[in-house]
Protein backbone atom coordinates (compact mmCIF):
# COMPACT_ATOMS: atom_id res chain seq x y z
CA UNK A 1 0.00 0.00 0.00
CA UNK A 2 1.23 3.42 -0.83
CA UNK A 3 2.16 5.52 2.13
CA UNK A 4 2.76 8.93 0.60
CA UNK A 5 1.40 11.86 2.59
CA UNK A 6 -0.41 13.08 -0.50
CA UNK A 7 -2.58 10.07 -0.62
CA UNK A 8 -3.71 10.62 2.94
CA UNK A 9 -4.39 14.28 2.32
CA UNK A 10 -6.26 13.54 -0.88
CA UNK A 11 -8.46 11.08 0.85
CA UNK A 12 -9.01 13.38 3.77
CA UNK A 13 -10.23 16.13 1.47
CA UNK A 14 -12.19 13.72 -0.69
CA UNK A 15 -13.87 12.03 2.22
CA UNK A 16 -14.69 15.28 3.91
CA UNK A 17 -16.22 16.54 0.70
CA UNK A 18 -18.15 13.33 0.19
CA UNK A 19 -19.39 13.46 3.77
CA UNK A 20 -20.33 17.11 3.57
CA UNK A 21 -22.14 16.81 0.27
CA UNK A 22 -24.03 13.78 1.48
CA UNK A 23 -24.95 15.31 4.78
CA UNK A 24 -26.33 18.37 3.05
CA UNK A 25 -28.07 16.86 0.05
CA UNK A 26 -29.46 13.84 1.80
CA UNK A 27 -31.64 16.33 3.58
CA UNK A 28 -32.84 17.43 0.18
CA UNK A 29 -33.34 13.80 -0.88
CA UNK A 30 -35.29 13.14 2.27
CA UNK A 31 -37.57 16.08 1.71
CA UNK A 32 -38.09 15.28 -1.94
CA UNK A 33 -38.68 11.62 -1.20
CA UNK A 34 -41.12 12.38 1.58
CA UNK A 35 -42.90 14.84 -0.65
CA UNK A 36 -43.29 12.34 -3.47
CA UNK A 37 -44.58 9.68 -1.09
CA UNK A 38 -47.09 12.18 0.23
CA UNK A 39 -47.90 13.37 -3.28
CA UNK A 40 -46.41 16.80 -2.81
CA UNK A 41 -43.66 18.52 -4.72
CA UNK A 42 -41.27 19.32 -1.94
CA UNK A 43 -38.60 21.99 -2.19
CA UNK A 44 -38.81 23.51 -5.65
CA UNK A 45 -38.07 27.21 -5.39
CA UNK A 46 -34.35 27.46 -4.63
CA UNK A 47 -32.57 26.43 -7.79
CA UNK A 48 -33.58 23.68 -10.18
CA UNK A 49 -35.95 21.34 -8.32
CA UNK A 50 -34.94 23.04 -5.10
CA UNK A 51 -31.41 21.72 -5.32
CA UNK A 52 -29.99 24.82 -3.69
CA UNK A 53 -32.25 24.40 -0.70
CA UNK A 54 -29.56 22.79 1.48
CA UNK A 55 -27.31 25.79 0.84
CA UNK A 56 -30.06 28.16 1.86
CA UNK A 57 -30.79 26.08 4.95
CA UNK A 58 -27.12 25.94 5.82
CA UNK A 59 -26.70 29.69 5.43
CA UNK A 60 -29.75 30.28 7.57
CA UNK A 61 -28.53 27.97 10.30
CA UNK A 62 -25.05 29.46 10.26
CA UNK A 63 -26.29 33.01 10.42
CA UNK A 64 -28.26 32.26 13.55
CA UNK A 65 -26.93 32.81 17.01
CA UNK A 66 -25.77 29.72 18.85
CA UNK A 67 -27.91 30.16 21.89
CA UNK A 68 -26.60 28.62 25.05
CA UNK A 69 -29.47 28.72 27.51
CA UNK A 70 -29.01 29.48 31.16
CA UNK A 71 -28.36 26.50 33.34
CA UNK A 72 -26.81 24.24 30.75
CA UNK A 73 -23.38 22.72 31.04
CA UNK A 74 -21.71 25.09 28.61
CA UNK A 75 -18.71 23.07 27.48
CA UNK A 76 -20.48 19.77 27.04
CA UNK A 77 -23.40 21.53 25.42
CA UNK A 78 -21.07 22.93 22.77
CA UNK A 79 -18.99 19.81 22.35
CA UNK A 80 -21.87 17.39 21.86
CA UNK A 81 -22.85 18.37 18.30
CA UNK A 82 -19.25 18.19 17.18
CA UNK A 83 -18.96 14.85 18.84
CA UNK A 84 -21.96 13.69 16.87
CA UNK A 85 -20.28 14.62 13.62
CA UNK A 86 -16.72 13.39 14.13
CA UNK A 87 -17.24 9.64 14.50
CA UNK A 88 -19.45 9.59 11.42
CA UNK A 89 -16.79 11.25 9.31
CA UNK A 90 -14.03 9.15 10.81
CA UNK A 91 -15.90 5.98 9.98
CA UNK A 92 -15.67 6.87 6.33
CA UNK A 93 -11.92 6.33 6.46
CA UNK A 94 -12.14 2.56 6.61
CA UNK A 95 -14.91 2.06 4.12
CA UNK A 96 -13.75 0.52 0.85
CA UNK A 97 -15.59 2.35 -1.89
CA UNK A 98 -13.95 0.25 -4.59
CA UNK A 99 -11.05 -2.08 -4.90
CA UNK A 100 -8.56 0.75 -4.95
CA UNK A 101 -10.64 3.53 -3.48
CA UNK A 102 -10.53 3.65 0.27
CA UNK A 103 -8.48 5.66 2.73
CA UNK A 104 -7.31 2.85 4.98
CA UNK A 105 -7.87 -0.85 4.87
CA UNK A 106 -7.39 -1.69 8.51
CA UNK A 107 -7.36 -5.20 9.79
CA UNK A 108 -10.01 -4.59 12.43
CA UNK A 109 -12.07 -2.02 10.57
CA UNK A 110 -15.39 -3.65 11.54
CA UNK A 111 -14.53 -3.28 15.20
CA UNK A 112 -13.45 0.31 14.67
CA UNK A 113 -16.79 1.15 13.08
CA UNK A 114 -18.71 -0.22 16.02
CA UNK A 115 -16.52 1.63 18.46
CA UNK A 116 -17.16 4.87 16.59
CA UNK A 117 -20.88 4.22 16.42
CA UNK A 118 -20.95 4.05 20.19
CA UNK A 119 -19.30 7.45 20.38
CA UNK A 120 -22.15 8.84 18.30
CA UNK A 121 -24.52 7.56 20.94
CA UNK A 122 -22.47 9.28 23.61
CA UNK A 123 -22.89 12.55 21.72
CA UNK A 124 -26.66 12.24 22.04
CA UNK A 125 -26.33 11.34 25.69
CA UNK A 126 -24.11 14.32 26.40
CA UNK A 127 -26.23 16.70 24.37
CA UNK A 128 -29.36 15.60 26.15
CA UNK A 129 -27.74 15.62 29.54
CA UNK A 130 -26.04 18.98 29.20
CA UNK A 131 -29.20 20.71 27.99
CA UNK A 132 -30.73 20.58 31.45
CA UNK A 133 -34.09 20.02 29.83
CA UNK A 134 -36.39 17.27 31.03
CA UNK A 135 -37.41 16.21 27.56
CA UNK A 136 -33.77 16.09 26.52
CA UNK A 137 -32.95 14.05 29.59
CA UNK A 138 -35.64 11.49 28.85
CA UNK A 139 -34.43 11.38 25.30
CA UNK A 140 -30.84 10.79 26.38
CA UNK A 141 -31.88 7.94 28.64
CA UNK A 142 -33.93 6.43 25.86
CA UNK A 143 -31.17 6.60 23.31
CA UNK A 144 -28.74 4.84 25.61
CA UNK A 145 -31.06 1.94 26.28
CA UNK A 146 -31.85 1.78 22.59
CA UNK A 147 -28.22 1.70 21.53
CA UNK A 148 -27.47 -0.92 24.12
CA UNK A 149 -30.29 -3.10 22.94
CA UNK A 150 -29.49 -2.87 19.26
CA UNK A 151 -25.74 -3.21 19.31
CA UNK A 152 -25.99 -6.78 20.50
CA UNK A 153 -28.00 -8.23 17.59
CA UNK A 154 -26.00 -6.09 15.21
CA UNK A 155 -22.72 -7.53 16.43
CA UNK A 156 -24.13 -11.04 16.45
CA UNK A 157 -25.07 -10.76 12.81
CA UNK A 158 -21.72 -9.27 11.91
CA UNK A 159 -20.04 -12.28 13.49
CA UNK A 160 -21.72 -14.48 10.90
CA UNK A 161 -20.21 -12.39 8.15
CA UNK A 162 -16.80 -12.46 9.80
CA UNK A 163 -17.05 -16.22 10.13
CA UNK A 164 -17.67 -16.62 6.45
CA UNK A 165 -14.98 -14.24 5.35
CA UNK A 166 -12.51 -15.13 7.99
CA UNK A 167 -11.51 -11.48 8.29
CA UNK A 168 -12.53 -8.34 10.06
CA UNK A 169 -11.17 -6.16 7.34
CA UNK A 170 -13.97 -4.60 5.33
CA UNK A 171 -11.91 -4.67 2.17
CA UNK A 172 -11.25 -8.38 2.52
CA UNK A 173 -14.89 -9.00 3.25
CA UNK A 174 -15.84 -7.19 0.08
CA UNK A 175 -13.14 -8.90 -1.99
CA UNK A 176 -14.47 -12.19 -0.73
CA UNK A 177 -17.83 -11.53 -2.39
CA UNK A 178 -16.70 -10.61 -5.90
CA UNK A 179 -18.15 -12.18 -9.00
CA UNK A 180 -21.88 -11.61 -9.21
CA UNK A 181 -24.75 -11.51 -6.79
CA UNK A 182 -24.63 -15.25 -6.11
CA UNK A 183 -21.36 -14.65 -4.34
CA UNK A 184 -22.69 -11.96 -2.09
CA UNK A 185 -22.98 -12.70 1.57
CA UNK A 186 -26.71 -12.28 1.54
CA UNK A 187 -27.13 -15.23 -0.86
CA UNK A 188 -24.13 -17.08 0.40
CA UNK A 189 -23.74 -20.76 -0.38
CA UNK A 190 -21.07 -22.49 1.66
CA UNK A 191 -20.23 -26.20 1.69
CA UNK A 192 -23.17 -26.72 -0.60
CA UNK A 193 -25.59 -25.22 1.95
CA UNK A 194 -27.63 -22.12 1.33
CA UNK A 195 -26.85 -20.15 4.46
CA UNK A 196 -29.47 -18.14 6.33
CA UNK A 197 -27.62 -14.94 5.69
CA UNK A 198 -30.70 -13.14 4.46
CA UNK A 199 -31.95 -13.25 8.03
CA UNK A 200 -28.68 -11.66 9.07
CA UNK A 201 -29.21 -9.00 6.47
CA UNK A 202 -32.72 -8.14 7.65
CA UNK A 203 -31.67 -8.06 11.29
CA UNK A 204 -28.64 -5.97 10.46
CA UNK A 205 -30.72 -3.54 8.46
CA UNK A 206 -33.32 -3.14 11.22
CA UNK A 207 -30.53 -2.60 13.70
CA UNK A 208 -28.85 0.01 11.56
CA UNK A 209 -32.15 1.90 11.32
CA UNK A 210 -32.35 1.79 15.10
CA UNK A 211 -28.70 2.68 15.59
CA UNK A 212 -29.03 5.77 13.43
CA UNK A 213 -32.08 6.90 15.39
CA UNK A 214 -34.28 6.94 12.34
CA UNK A 215 -38.04 6.61 12.33
CA UNK A 216 -39.76 4.34 13.19
CA UNK A 217 -37.11 3.95 15.88
CA UNK A 218 -36.49 7.65 16.49
CA UNK A 219 -37.02 7.35 20.20
CA UNK A 220 -34.47 9.99 20.97
CA UNK A 221 -36.11 12.79 19.03
CA UNK A 222 -39.73 11.58 19.03
CA UNK A 223 -41.13 14.95 18.13
CA UNK A 224 -44.70 14.28 19.22
CA UNK A 225 -43.61 13.04 22.62
CA UNK A 226 -40.37 14.74 23.52
CA UNK A 227 -40.68 17.88 21.40
CA UNK A 228 -37.27 17.36 19.76
CA UNK A 229 -35.60 15.19 22.35
CA UNK A 230 -31.92 15.85 22.84
CA UNK A 231 -32.05 18.64 20.25
CA UNK A 232 -34.72 20.61 22.08
CA UNK A 233 -32.35 23.29 23.31
CA UNK A 234 -30.17 23.41 20.22
CA UNK A 235 -30.53 26.04 17.58
CA UNK A 236 -28.31 27.27 14.84
CA UNK A 237 -25.47 25.00 13.69
CA UNK A 238 -25.67 22.99 16.90
CA UNK A 239 -28.87 21.63 15.52
CA UNK A 240 -27.39 21.58 12.04
CA UNK A 241 -24.47 19.42 13.13
CA UNK A 242 -26.76 16.95 14.83
CA UNK A 243 -28.79 16.75 11.65
CA UNK A 244 -25.72 16.27 9.50
CA UNK A 245 -24.40 13.71 11.93
CA UNK A 246 -27.63 11.79 11.58
CA UNK A 247 -27.43 11.76 7.80
CA UNK A 248 -23.80 10.77 7.88
CA UNK A 249 -24.67 7.91 10.17
CA UNK A 250 -27.18 6.80 7.59
CA UNK A 251 -24.50 6.91 4.92
CA UNK A 252 -22.13 4.91 7.09
CA UNK A 253 -24.88 2.42 7.91
CA UNK A 254 -25.69 2.02 4.23
CA UNK A 255 -22.01 1.63 3.32
CA UNK A 256 -21.58 -1.00 5.98
CA UNK A 257 -24.66 -2.90 4.84
CA UNK A 258 -23.54 -2.76 1.26
CA UNK A 259 -20.06 -3.96 2.09
CA UNK A 260 -21.02 -6.68 4.52
CA UNK A 261 -23.92 -8.18 2.64
CA UNK A 262 -24.23 -6.80 -0.85
CA UNK A 263 -20.78 -7.39 -2.22
CA UNK A 264 -19.38 -3.90 -1.86
CA UNK A 265 -18.40 -2.58 -5.27
CA UNK A 266 -19.23 -5.81 -7.06
CA UNK A 267 -21.48 -5.76 -10.08
CA UNK A 268 -24.56 -7.94 -9.55
CA UNK A 269 -23.87 -9.76 -12.81
CA UNK A 270 -20.18 -10.18 -12.21
CA UNK A 271 -19.22 -7.93 -15.11
CA UNK A 272 -17.82 -4.50 -14.34
CA UNK A 273 -17.14 -3.96 -10.69
CA UNK A 274 -16.48 -0.37 -9.71
CA UNK A 275 -17.25 2.48 -7.39
CA UNK A 276 -20.51 3.31 -9.20
CA UNK A 277 -22.00 -0.01 -8.14
CA UNK A 278 -21.10 0.76 -4.59
CA UNK A 279 -22.68 4.19 -4.79
CA UNK A 280 -25.77 2.76 -6.43
CA UNK A 281 -26.13 0.23 -3.65
CA UNK A 282 -25.73 2.72 -0.84
CA UNK A 283 -28.19 5.15 -2.37
CA UNK A 284 -30.78 2.45 -2.84
CA UNK A 285 -30.28 1.56 0.81
CA UNK A 286 -30.51 5.20 1.83
CA UNK A 287 -33.70 5.55 -0.13
CA UNK A 288 -35.05 2.56 1.75
CA UNK A 289 -34.22 4.36 4.98
CA UNK A 290 -36.23 7.33 3.78
CA UNK A 291 -39.03 5.16 2.46
CA UNK A 292 -39.35 3.35 5.78
CA UNK A 293 -39.34 6.58 7.72
CA UNK A 294 -42.28 7.99 5.79
CA UNK A 295 -44.31 4.82 5.94
CA UNK A 296 -44.54 3.75 9.55
CA UNK A 297 -45.66 5.30 12.78
CA UNK A 298 -43.19 5.38 15.63
CA UNK A 299 -42.61 2.33 17.77
CA UNK A 300 -43.35 2.71 21.44
CA UNK A 301 -40.17 2.79 23.52
CA UNK A 302 -40.70 -0.49 25.37
CA UNK A 303 -41.87 -2.25 22.23
CA UNK A 304 -38.62 -1.18 20.70
CA UNK A 305 -36.63 -2.84 23.45
CA UNK A 306 -38.92 -5.87 23.28
CA UNK A 307 -38.29 -6.17 19.57
CA UNK A 308 -34.60 -6.28 20.19
CA UNK A 309 -34.46 -8.51 23.24
CA UNK A 310 -37.29 -10.86 22.38
CA UNK A 311 -37.08 -11.15 18.63
CA UNK A 312 -33.86 -9.85 17.13
CA UNK A 313 -31.42 -11.22 19.68
CA UNK A 314 -32.86 -14.77 19.78
CA UNK A 315 -33.07 -14.83 16.02
CA UNK A 316 -29.57 -13.55 15.51
CA UNK A 317 -28.21 -16.02 18.05
CA UNK A 318 -29.99 -18.89 16.36
CA UNK A 319 -28.81 -17.62 13.03
CA UNK A 320 -25.25 -17.50 14.30
CA UNK A 321 -25.41 -21.08 15.52
CA UNK A 322 -27.01 -22.34 12.33
CA UNK A 323 -24.48 -20.56 10.18
CA UNK A 324 -21.58 -21.82 12.25
CA UNK A 325 -22.96 -25.33 12.09
CA UNK A 326 -23.52 -25.20 8.35
CA UNK A 327 -20.05 -23.88 7.67
CA UNK A 328 -18.02 -25.97 10.04
CA UNK A 329 -19.93 -29.12 10.94
CA UNK A 330 -22.03 -30.28 8.04
Amino acid at each position, binding site marked *: METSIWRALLYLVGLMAFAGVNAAWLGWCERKGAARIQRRIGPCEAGFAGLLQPLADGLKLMSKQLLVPQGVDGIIFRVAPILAMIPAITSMAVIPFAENVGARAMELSVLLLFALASIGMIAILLGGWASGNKYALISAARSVSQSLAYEIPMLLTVITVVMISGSMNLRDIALNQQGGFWHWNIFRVENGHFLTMWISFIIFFICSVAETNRAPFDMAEAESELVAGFMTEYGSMGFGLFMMGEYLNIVVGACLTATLFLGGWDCPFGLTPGIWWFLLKIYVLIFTFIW*IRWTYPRVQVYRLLNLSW*KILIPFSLANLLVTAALIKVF
Partner: protein
Amino acid sequence: MSGYWHDIVTGSKSLVTGLAITAREFFKPVVTEQYPWEVPTMTPLFRGHIELVGNEETGEPNCVVCGMCQRACSSACISLDGKKNEGGKGKVLTSYMLDFTKCSLCGFCVESCNFNALRFSKEYNLASFDKNDFVMDLMKRLEEQNRCKR
Protein backbone atom coordinates in the same frame (compact mmCIF):
# COMPACT_ATOMS: atom_id res chain seq x y z
CA MET B 1 -45.84 -18.72 22.03
CA SER B 2 -48.20 -18.98 19.08
CA GLY B 3 -48.92 -15.31 19.54
CA TYR B 4 -45.20 -14.65 19.21
CA TRP B 5 -44.93 -16.36 15.83
CA HIS B 6 -48.24 -14.97 14.71
CA ASP B 7 -47.03 -11.45 15.50
CA ILE B 8 -43.83 -11.98 13.58
CA VAL B 9 -45.55 -13.37 10.49
CA THR B 10 -48.56 -11.02 10.29
CA GLY B 11 -46.43 -8.13 11.47
CA SER B 12 -43.87 -8.56 8.74
CA LYS B 13 -46.65 -8.94 6.21
CA SER B 14 -48.31 -5.71 7.35
CA LEU B 15 -44.99 -3.89 7.20
CA VAL B 16 -44.35 -5.03 3.65
CA THR B 17 -47.90 -4.04 2.67
CA GLY B 18 -47.27 -0.61 4.12
CA LEU B 19 -44.10 -0.21 2.11
CA ALA B 20 -45.93 -1.32 -1.03
CA ILE B 21 -48.61 1.29 -0.47
CA THR B 22 -46.19 4.16 0.00
CA ALA B 23 -44.26 2.97 -3.03
CA ARG B 24 -47.47 3.05 -5.04
CA GLU B 25 -48.18 6.56 -3.84
CA PHE B 26 -44.65 7.58 -4.72
CA PHE B 27 -45.36 7.18 -8.42
CA LYS B 28 -48.75 8.85 -8.41
CA PRO B 29 -49.08 12.43 -9.59
CA VAL B 30 -48.80 15.36 -7.25
CA VAL B 31 -52.08 16.63 -5.81
CA THR B 32 -50.99 19.90 -4.26
CA GLU B 33 -51.50 23.31 -5.72
CA GLN B 34 -48.49 25.60 -5.94
CA TYR B 35 -50.22 28.59 -4.49
CA PRO B 36 -48.64 31.76 -5.80
CA TRP B 37 -48.13 30.16 -9.24
CA GLU B 38 -51.47 28.41 -9.42
CA VAL B 39 -54.33 30.51 -8.20
CA PRO B 40 -57.53 28.76 -7.23
CA THR B 41 -60.83 30.10 -8.48
CA MET B 42 -63.23 30.96 -5.76
CA THR B 43 -66.65 29.36 -5.69
CA PRO B 44 -69.60 31.69 -6.38
CA LEU B 45 -70.59 31.60 -2.72
CA PHE B 46 -67.14 32.30 -1.39
CA ARG B 47 -67.27 34.81 1.42
CA GLY B 48 -64.54 37.36 1.32
CA HIS B 49 -64.97 40.66 3.09
CA ILE B 50 -68.10 42.55 2.09
CA GLU B 51 -68.16 45.31 -0.47
CA LEU B 52 -70.73 47.79 -1.67
CA VAL B 53 -72.68 47.19 -4.83
CA GLY B 54 -72.91 50.16 -7.11
CA ASN B 55 -75.77 51.09 -9.35
CA GLU B 56 -75.38 49.63 -12.81
CA GLU B 57 -75.53 52.98 -14.56
CA THR B 58 -74.48 55.68 -12.16
CA GLY B 59 -72.04 53.68 -10.08
CA GLU B 60 -73.51 55.24 -6.96
CA PRO B 61 -73.96 52.81 -4.05
CA ASN B 62 -77.33 51.10 -3.86
CA CYS B 63 -77.31 51.67 -0.12
CA VAL B 64 -80.19 53.61 1.40
CA VAL B 65 -78.59 53.87 4.85
CA CYS B 66 -81.27 51.83 6.59
CA GLY B 67 -78.70 50.40 9.00
CA MET B 68 -80.00 46.84 8.86
CA CYS B 69 -76.54 45.45 8.21
CA GLN B 70 -75.15 47.32 11.16
CA ARG B 71 -77.82 45.88 13.43
CA ALA B 72 -77.49 42.37 12.07
CA CYS B 73 -73.73 42.31 12.51
CA SER B 74 -72.73 39.97 15.28
CA SER B 75 -69.35 41.53 15.87
CA ALA B 76 -70.14 45.23 15.47
CA CYS B 77 -67.68 45.74 12.69
CA ILE B 78 -69.81 47.89 10.40
CA SER B 79 -70.16 51.59 10.89
CA LEU B 80 -71.93 53.67 8.28
CA ASP B 81 -73.14 57.18 7.96
CA GLY B 82 -75.47 58.97 5.59
CA LYS B 83 -77.00 62.35 4.96
CA LYS B 84 -80.30 63.53 3.64
CA ASN B 85 -80.60 63.26 -0.08
CA GLU B 86 -80.80 66.82 -1.39
CA GLY B 87 -83.43 67.14 -4.04
CA GLY B 88 -84.70 63.62 -3.60
CA LYS B 89 -86.10 61.31 -1.02
CA GLY B 90 -84.30 59.04 1.35
CA LYS B 91 -80.67 59.18 2.33
CA VAL B 92 -77.36 58.81 0.59
CA LEU B 93 -74.36 57.04 1.96
CA THR B 94 -71.46 59.20 3.02
CA SER B 95 -69.19 56.68 4.67
CA TYR B 96 -69.14 52.95 5.12
CA MET B 97 -66.35 51.58 7.28
CA LEU B 98 -65.73 47.88 7.75
CA ASP B 99 -63.47 46.74 10.56
CA PHE B 100 -62.41 43.49 8.98
CA THR B 101 -60.29 42.50 11.99
CA LYS B 102 -63.48 41.83 13.92
CA CYS B 103 -65.53 40.33 11.10
CA SER B 104 -66.43 36.67 11.41
CA LEU B 105 -67.73 36.36 7.84
CA CYS B 106 -71.11 35.12 8.94
CA GLY B 107 -72.92 36.87 6.11
CA PHE B 108 -75.78 38.27 8.18
CA CYS B 109 -75.20 41.75 6.80
CA VAL B 110 -75.52 40.62 3.19
CA GLU B 111 -78.62 38.62 4.03
CA SER B 112 -80.24 41.44 5.93
CA CYS B 113 -79.82 43.89 3.08
CA ASN B 114 -83.04 44.33 1.13
CA PHE B 115 -81.63 46.73 -1.43
CA ASN B 116 -78.91 44.64 -3.05
CA ALA B 117 -76.33 47.03 -1.71
CA LEU B 118 -73.87 44.54 -0.24
CA ARG B 119 -72.09 41.51 -1.54
CA PHE B 120 -69.07 39.39 -0.72
CA SER B 121 -65.87 40.17 -2.50
CA LYS B 122 -63.78 37.33 -3.81
CA GLU B 123 -60.57 38.49 -2.23
CA TYR B 124 -58.88 35.84 -0.18
CA ASN B 125 -55.19 36.70 -0.17
CA LEU B 126 -55.27 39.57 2.26
CA ALA B 127 -52.14 40.05 4.22
CA SER B 128 -50.58 43.03 5.86
CA PHE B 129 -48.16 44.05 8.54
CA ASP B 130 -50.50 46.68 9.83
CA LYS B 131 -53.88 45.90 11.24
CA ASN B 132 -55.13 49.34 10.31
CA ASP B 133 -55.09 48.15 6.72
CA PHE B 134 -58.09 46.04 7.56
CA VAL B 135 -60.26 48.91 8.59
CA MET B 136 -61.65 49.33 5.14
CA ASP B 137 -63.36 52.26 3.58
CA LEU B 138 -65.85 50.54 1.32
CA MET B 139 -66.91 53.80 -0.35
CA LYS B 140 -63.39 54.30 -1.58
CA ARG B 141 -63.27 50.72 -2.74
CA LEU B 142 -66.44 51.17 -4.75
CA GLU B 143 -65.08 54.33 -6.33
CA GLU B 144 -61.96 52.51 -7.37
CA GLN B 145 -63.98 49.72 -8.85
CA ASN B 146 -66.04 52.23 -10.77
CA ARG B 147 -62.90 53.84 -12.08
CA CYS B 148 -61.55 50.50 -13.22
CA LYS B 149 -64.78 49.73 -14.99
CA ARG B 150 -64.59 52.90 -16.98
